[in-house]
């Protein structure tokens, strides 16, 4: 197959874009690295999440909102095509507040976000402790829980099944997927691009670089300078329990299988995915403050993954000016944004240009000298 377009990186972002492109009659080749790579797609928490996002970047709040609006239809299509159950639930989501000060701070933060948005009804509310207790009849809350914010649009899904389904969807639409296919070099070849892999070369008229933390060195070769750093996140998982948490919270969710995911920490040790006892202790302590009964539940696993972080934490979507036909797509929250990536972003890439509403996400925003 001579591809119309090559997507480099088969994580949550590349797979979503490739799936979307394949559905639009492009001959898509998705190239992925190997298990030795840093892979956020295999480490994440599975939230499809809006509340609290986008302070200082209204376009990001709008983008997240748009993606979540697409999520239900996206899931249904993907499930119908692949028979993989994504376990997507949208019962709203919580952010627990420990202490009255935290409750008030949360309220003000969400109010600021709401005012930044400017129009529309609030799609969140603050739940005081009695209201929260009514929502969670099977949970005895710790004494410090003052309440929670409730976001109506929030939800969660199984992120590993999402990834598997998007891979299956690419194949289903006639695309190709190759594992252990690391791209070493990209060079322009006329109006095409020549990709050098270990022991072979490929030619394609268009490329999308969505290789997570592996992206900067590839993007540089086609005139895209994308600043990126890893941010470590650690997650704990418990044994399976009877359902007790009917909706996810930002650091605590019960999966369809019954396990409880707890996380994630944030720190900056560089390219290091080791887990630490300190993080396990901190996460456990915080969780037990919220739901004391979890102190008696067994942990079965702890892992760490690296978030793909730009300087302002918001996504980068861009087409190269010097090498038209080369695109880059990088973000944290690739699960939440998967529906947008598969639909609007894939359509724009297929059409050959990114719409104006994505211009706030161009990496040139990092070139502007900050006013003192």
């Amino acid at each position, binding site marked *: 197959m001579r591809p119309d377009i090559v997507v480099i990186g088969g994580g949550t972002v590349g797979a979503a874009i490739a799936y979307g492109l394949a559905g639009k009659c492009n001959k898509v080749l998705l190239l992925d690295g190997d298990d030795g790579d840093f892979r956020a797609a295999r480490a994440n928490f599975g939230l499809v999440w809006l509340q609290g996002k986008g302070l200082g970047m209204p376009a990001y709040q709008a983008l997240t909102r748009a993606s979540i609006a697409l999520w239900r239809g996206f899931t249904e299509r993907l499930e119908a095509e692949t028979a993989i159950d994504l376990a997507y639930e949208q019962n709203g989501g919580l952010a627990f507040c420990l202490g009255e000060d935290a409750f008030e701070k949360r309220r003000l933060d969400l109010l600021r976000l709401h005012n930044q948005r400017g129009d529309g009804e609030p799609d969140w509310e603050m739940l005081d402790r009695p209201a929260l207790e009514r929502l969670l009849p*099977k949970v005895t809350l710790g004494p410090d829980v003052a309440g929670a914010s409730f976001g109506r649009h929030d939800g969660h899904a199984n992120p590993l099944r999402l990834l598997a389904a998007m891979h299956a969807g690419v194949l289903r639409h006639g695309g190709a997927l190759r594992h252990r296919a690391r791209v070493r070099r990209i060079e322009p070849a006329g109006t095409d691009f020549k990709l050098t892999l270990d022991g072979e070369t490929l030619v394609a008229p268009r490329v999308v670089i969505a290789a997570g933390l592996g992206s900067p060195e590839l993007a540089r070769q086609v005139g895209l300078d994308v600043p990126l750093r890893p941010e470590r996140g650690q997650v704990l998982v418990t044994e*399976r*329990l*009877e359902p007790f948490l009917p909706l996810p919270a930002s650091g605590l969710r019960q999966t369809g*299988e*019954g396990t409880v995911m707890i996380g994630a920490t944030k720190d900056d040790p560089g390219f290091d995915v080791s887990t630490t006892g300190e993080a396990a202790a901190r996460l456990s302590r915080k969780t037990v403050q919220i739901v004391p009964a*979890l102190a008696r539940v067994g942990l079965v696993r702890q892992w760490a993954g690296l978030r793909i972080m730009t300087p302002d934490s918001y996504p980068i979507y861009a087409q190269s000016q010097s090498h038209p036909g080369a695109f880059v797509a990088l973000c944290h929250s690739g699960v939440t944004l998967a529906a947008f990536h598969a639909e609007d972003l894939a359509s724009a890439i297929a059409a050959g240009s990114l719409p104006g509403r994505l211009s706030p996400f161009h990496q040139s925003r990092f070139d502007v000298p900050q006013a003192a």
Partner: protein
Amino acid sequence: MFRKLHDPGPQAVTIFIDGRPVVAEPGESVAAVLLRQQEGWNRTTPVSQSPRAPYCMMGVCFECLVEIDGQGSVQSCLTPVAAGMRIARQQGRRSLSA
């Protein structure tokens, strides 16, 4: 099923399995006592509900989980019996309260 080879004699203790009194010998594990019972299982699995019995008897396989004195998912092969101990066989996913 298994049976005890000797009589524990006067030092025997009573423990309760699903509310039923059972005689045990100090120093033996809860798993050993469970294996002597008519019902040869101690839990059903969280996913397919299939019954499980103690297997490795040395703390590595986690097949022997039971609820002991209100604490769920305890490895019974690593827990010595104590007089009055209350054991509950665990059915499927445990609840948050146990």
